[in-house]
């Protein structure tokens, strides 16, 4: 059973070429423009948090919205990449770009390991296997001495990018993070709008038929799982450098739940949905931080309303109105 969004009423115009629709280019340009001026208006560290989570949610969306696989353990990749990057920057003294690369690599490897085992099952079992493995990663993070247990890895140096650019300035770091996140988003866009992406959507919509057409379905699923895990790792590693901290929160299962919420709220299977979802959830958390448990209640309410009424998510609804794929 896959999470096919059978209610999207986007017209199924057959496409002979997979050219980038013009409206997508416009949206990307506008988004980039807004993000370039944003740090002069809003607190850059807050914006960087939004960006990192936008990438994380987009990575999950690749797996969930386009691959049709619900992973309830994505925090494992986000968090372990976070720890590896933090350790690399602090203890091994690597420059931030190397630390982030290492963290991303860790996410990829873990994705390969977990994915190859989880892919054997479908639907709810798949989700439960990912959850089980994520809990094991959490346990490992809790026990392993290098992760610092409850303390986490603190005082991670931001360092100098390529040994040249000092990242302790929030504004400089912001533009670096923007580059990374936007790059990741472009990559996801490219993956989706490619022959690979088309096959993926076919598998999501009707797996038996794809098998009968001769596609090696498991290989595609594993590939998208690893891609998703890698990008989640990239988000985690970047976050560790920005906040100079890697902690157990990053590997805990509620983090997996939160990113699912962001994707769902923004719109599964849309390009810009996760971005919007991440922005909204992070803003909400920030705003309600002083109110203690009301954040949890609000998240729950958003979950319930979205599942009952707005399954397509915000961008999904907009896409339906404008009759253009977003």
């Amino acid at each position, binding site marked *: 059973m896959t999470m096919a969004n059978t209610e999207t009423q986007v017209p199924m115009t057959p496409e002979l070429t997979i050219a980038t629709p013009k409206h997508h280019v416009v949206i990307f340009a506008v988004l980039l423009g807004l993000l370039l001026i944003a740090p002069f208006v809003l607190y850059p560290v807050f914006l960087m948090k939004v960006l990192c989570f936008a990438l994380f949610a987009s990575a999950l969306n690749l797996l969930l919205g386009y691959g049709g696989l619900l992973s309830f353990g994505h925090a494992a990749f986000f968090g372990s990449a976070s720890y590896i990057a933090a350790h690399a920057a602090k203890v091994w003294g690597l420059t931030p770009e190397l630390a982030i690369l290492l963290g991303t690599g860790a996410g990829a490897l873990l994705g390969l390991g977990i994915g190859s085992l989880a892919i054997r099952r479908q639907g709810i079992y798949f989700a439960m296997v990912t959850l089980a493995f994520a809990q094991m990663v959490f346990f490992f993070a*809790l026990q392993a001495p290098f992760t610092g247990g409850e303390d986490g890895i603190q005082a991670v140096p931001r360092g100098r990018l390529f040994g040249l650019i000092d990242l302790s300035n929030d504004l400089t770091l912001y533009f670096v993070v923007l580059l990374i996140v936007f790059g990741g988003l472009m990559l996801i866009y490219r993956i989706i709008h490619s022959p690979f992406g088309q096959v993926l959507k076919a598998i999501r919509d009707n797996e038996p038929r794809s098998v009968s057409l001769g596609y090696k379905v498991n290989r595609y699923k594993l590939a998208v799982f690893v891609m998703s895990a890698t990008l989640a790792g990239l988000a985690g590693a970047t976050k560790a450098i920005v*906040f100079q901290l890697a902690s157990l929160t990053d590997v805990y299962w509620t983090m997996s739940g939160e990113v699912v919420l962001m994707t769902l709220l923004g719109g599964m299977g849309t390009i810009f949905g996760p971005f919007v979802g991440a922005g909204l959830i992070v803003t909400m958390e920030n705003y309600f931080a002083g109110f203690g448990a009301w954040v949890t209640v609000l998240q729950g309410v958003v979950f319930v309303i979205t599942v009952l009424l707005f399954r397509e998510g915000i961008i999904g609804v907009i896409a339906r109105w404008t009759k253009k794929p977003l």
Partner: protein
Amino acid sequence: MTFTKGLLLSAALILTAAPALAETAVKIGVLNDRSGIYADLSGEGSVIAARMAVEDFDAASKGISVDIVSADHQNKPDIASNIARQWYDTDGVDLIVDVPTSSAAFAVSDITKEKNKVFMNSGAGSADLTGAKCSPNTIHWTYDTWALAHGTGNAMVASGAKKWFFITADYAFGQSLEKDTAAVVTAAGGEVVGAVKHPFPGTDFSSYLLQAQSSGAQVIGLANAGGDTVNTIKQAAEFGITQAGQSLAGLLIFITDIHALGLETAQGLVLTEAFYWDLNDQTREWSARFAEQNGGKMPTMVHAGVYASVLHYLKAVEATGGKDSAAVIAKMKELPADDPLFGKGEVRADGRVTHDMYLFKVKAPGDSKGPWDYYETLATIPAAEAFRPLADGGCPLVN
């Protein structure tokens, strides 16, 4: 430089050199747990304590305007770090107080050093805060694991309880508390017959209590805190541990825990604290005022520590005439600590504040005259002995 420029420059210099009668605006952030396991021992009570300090000091008449903000760090270092960073960067906070949970305290200490502000901790326990991880911008009030370990550990071994078994919360604080207490016990001639680490937080301790029972220990040392300690003690009562002859040593207990447990279950517990509302006339007077604002609940030592630290900070601000972090901290270490709650003490070079600590025993229900009348004082540990010697901490600030 032209004449006009010179005139303007001089005017600017004169205006900025105006006498310090101008208002110093200070913003204090109370960062603690407002919704989790430590919400009762810190939480809103710390905000009340901070406000009382500002009023009692009469900051307004001394030209200091104080603004107090608060936030919930949910006992997580990442949330604490984010809030601290945002407070320092965009909200203009000068001083952060309280911060229970050692992992959060370390995070705030790092950010405070980076942004060159002031951090006065009252809630966290790890002695590393003034030891290996000390910082020139951090001052540690109230208690730490070394003081607790020495207080309770020495007292119990002296009373004949030589064989110890530890039930430890498996995280940095619990481990350091166990390590410190074990060192004290062995140094005093006792013996550690076993130890077990439980996941933090835990719910069911029956298995560990059973192991403690079969170990033949005379004392079961509880190297955990908050809800974990309360649950362990409750379940120990259920399994008849104390009836069978073993005693429990709560290595970190607050009066709110005793209130939650009830005297029936908690009686006989020996513990070390830095403050008790019923200690003397001054503490009684202050606590009565505090309880009025706190829904009738008496203050914990953490609340008292917040009051004392804010008071000391304001004294330093008044003395230096400004809020420059380095100057204020230097002044705080120069001035002796003196307040109605902790009495006289010293702010050391490593950031540790020394004051008397007290060994208490929880009363039997029959001996208590009413709610919150829970402790009888067994001993007073003088400030000079209560805390780790300055040279032993491994703090780079100490030369």
